[in-house]
């Protein structure tokens, strides 16, 4: 039974509520569409005295993340959010908290990259930061945005984790759309994310040197330790999501499925388009087609085992990419292929690229993808490569 008080909240405000309930110490952010509503709401909360935090209005996203790193190293609970060009500008800094084990928590309101300039949603910005070593999750609706943000603090600050975490919400589709959201009880959230103390902080009583210089005799060991620890956060992430479920009645999984019973084909999505895909699956099922849906919730660390389990009875997997890796196709599709290659060489995986720069992906588009994928599989010899295809684009 899902718990909370039902309110109408924009995705941005849902995030802001989660940040307020987490009682953060320092917020550092720079304005960029479509993230602005989050920081505006937080600034209002501070101005009204309902949130006691330092808001550093930095002069760039590079500084936004840098200030979060400094504040986190000094023991504060922090928050920042950005999108698109902002994430690209802070790209260099994103590797710092993951490599220095600082539990910075951030939100990306996903948006396309220039040029041409586009403020609208796609996942180009998210795909450009795949390798930063942060725990990364994709929310499908405003409820998930709030819940995953609450869990992000708990996870990042867990002593067995201590990695930064990022919640991706689709720009405009979530950030600017008002939906019914179950607002959890503040005290229960405070109990769920207790005040934390990082084992190593910048404190004159106990001096430490952070961010030292690593010559070849030590760098690979540092990176291996980071990767081993990062991979081993998966059970903890699930454990925390389970505990969240027991407390608030809403359960999350690294890979979530919809109507996969007897499905021979399935769609795979990330972010808000998952809900459109559900409607498409419903229609396809009504038409007698055994199609299901897989949504990647946890993007990093990548949920290999859960994905393999989800596709075990499939003959066809249709992967939607909302980003383009020039000269390569869709980045999600190529990752899914590589994750399944060892165990499921027989599975037909067909990738489509759609929804770039805020172009809507409709129910019809998903139905078309399934049909088109089937046709393409039939048109080639077994084992022959199926090139990724962009759909919904004027020729």
């Amino acid at each position, binding site marked *: 039974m899902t718990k909370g008080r039902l309110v109408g909240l924009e995705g941005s405000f849902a995030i802001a509520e989660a940040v307020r309930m987490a009682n953060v110490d320092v917020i*550092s952010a720079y304005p960029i569409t479509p993230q602005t509503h989050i920081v505006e709401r937080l600034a209002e909360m501070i101005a009204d005295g309902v949130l006691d935090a330092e808001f*550093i209005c930095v002069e760039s996203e590079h500084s936004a993340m840098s200030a979060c790193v400094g504040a986190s*190293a000094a*023991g504060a609970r922090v928050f920042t959010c950005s999108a698109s060009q902002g994430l690209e500008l802070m790209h260099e800094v994103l590797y*710092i908290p993951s490599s220095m084990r600082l539990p910075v928590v951030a939100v990306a309101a996903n948006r396309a990259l220039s040029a041409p300039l586009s403020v609208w949603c796609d996942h180009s910005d998210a795909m450009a930061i795949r390798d930063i070593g942060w725990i990364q999750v994709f929310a499908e609706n405003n409820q998930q945005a709030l819940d995953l943000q609450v869990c992000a603090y708990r996870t990042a600050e867990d002593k067995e984790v201590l990695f930064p975490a990022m919640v991706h919400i689709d720009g405009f589709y979530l950030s600017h759309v008002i939906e019914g959201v179950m607002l959890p009880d503040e005290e229960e959230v405070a109990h769920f994310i207790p005040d934390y103390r990082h084992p190593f902080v910048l404190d004159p009583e106990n001096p430490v040197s952070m961010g030292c210089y690593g010559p070849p005799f030590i760098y690979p060991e540092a990176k291996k330790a980071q990767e081993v620890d990062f991979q081993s956060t998966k059970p903890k992430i699930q454990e925390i999501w389970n505990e969240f479920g027991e407390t608030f009645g809403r359960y999350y999984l690294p890979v979530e499925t919809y109507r996969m019973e007897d499905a021979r084909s399935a769609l795979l999505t990330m972010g808000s388009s998952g809900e459109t895909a559900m409607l498409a699956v419903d229609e396809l099922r009504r038409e007698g087609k055994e199609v299901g849906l897989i949504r990647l919730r946890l993007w990093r660390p990548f949920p290999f085992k859960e994905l393999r389990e989800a596709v075990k009875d499939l003959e066809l997997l249709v992967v939607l990419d909302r980003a383009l890796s020039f000269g390569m196709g869709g980045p999600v599709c190529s990752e899914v292929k590589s994750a399944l290659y060892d165990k499921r060489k027989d599975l037909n995986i067909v990738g489509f690229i759609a929804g770039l720069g805020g172009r809507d992906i409709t129910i019809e588009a998903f139905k078309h993808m399934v049909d088109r994928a089937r046709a393409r599989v039939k048109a080639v010899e077994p084992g022959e490569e199926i090139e990724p295809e962009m759909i919904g684009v004027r020729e």
Partner: protein
Amino acid sequence: MRNKDEGEEMEHEQEEKMFLPRFITTEENFAPGHRACVGCGEALAVRHVCKALGKNVIIVNATGCIEIFTSLLPLTSWRVPWIHTLFENVGAVVSGVESAYKARIRKGKIEDRGVKFVGFAGDGGTSDIGLQALSGAMERGHNFLYCCFDNEAYMNTGIQRSSSTPYGAWTTTAPVGKKSIGQMTWKKNMPEIAVAHRIPYVATACPSYPFDLMDKVRKGVELEGPAYLHIFSVCPTGWRCPPNLSVELGRLAVETGIFPLYEVINGEYHLSVDFPELKPVREYLKKQGRFRHLTEKDIERIQARVEEEYQKLKEKAGGK
């Protein structure tokens, strides 16, 4: 340290100078055994700065010589909390550290023990790539001291020119050739940029004047709000001069007017050392390989510029 006409006061000052070293702590918070080059003016400056800062401080360091020669894993030269992250973000990281303390003290999560926050960066990390983050931090009014250790080029990467490299100096990216005398532009006046932010304290210093340097560090951290300290740091490796000239060259830079020592307290200029007559810049330039190629005409041009700038500074400080 200003010149005084009264004989008695002069005598008193002389006496004080003789005993001053006895009042300086023997505690080294910047540990010996680091890997700086022989004669490094920057390492000397860091040592003095750390003596003045004491233990109750958090240092945020930019990428550069200091970070490299003090933090080679698994060793560290720092006996105070120290963090390095990137090259261009010291202003932002120190803002974050200071804000974290401010918020957590206000929320009762930690005690207020009067911790000081200090940023360290080189001239490249300050006047080039880190200028934006520093400007933001000064504008927002965080309570911190920023120390720019100016060795007048990117020394860590191999003596490439920065906007702080002086006119006529040879560097690897401003080489001397048939069509070049090396650096073709005049040194960026970083302290004036700091002054333009209307912060409470801006000063210049040099480890060749250690008591003046330590005094300015103390003033900078004790004042509420941002403080900027520009520290002239002789680099024998990059300046192509013998390492035993490090202290002497620092003095000559001041005595020739090339690097005047001054303070700007709440917008008011004070010369820390003034000379009735400046030494000719030739004395300073001729001791360094990086200026070896300069012709008499080049030196005259530098002399004229130095005199002009010095005069402007004196006027700001209320002198003639």
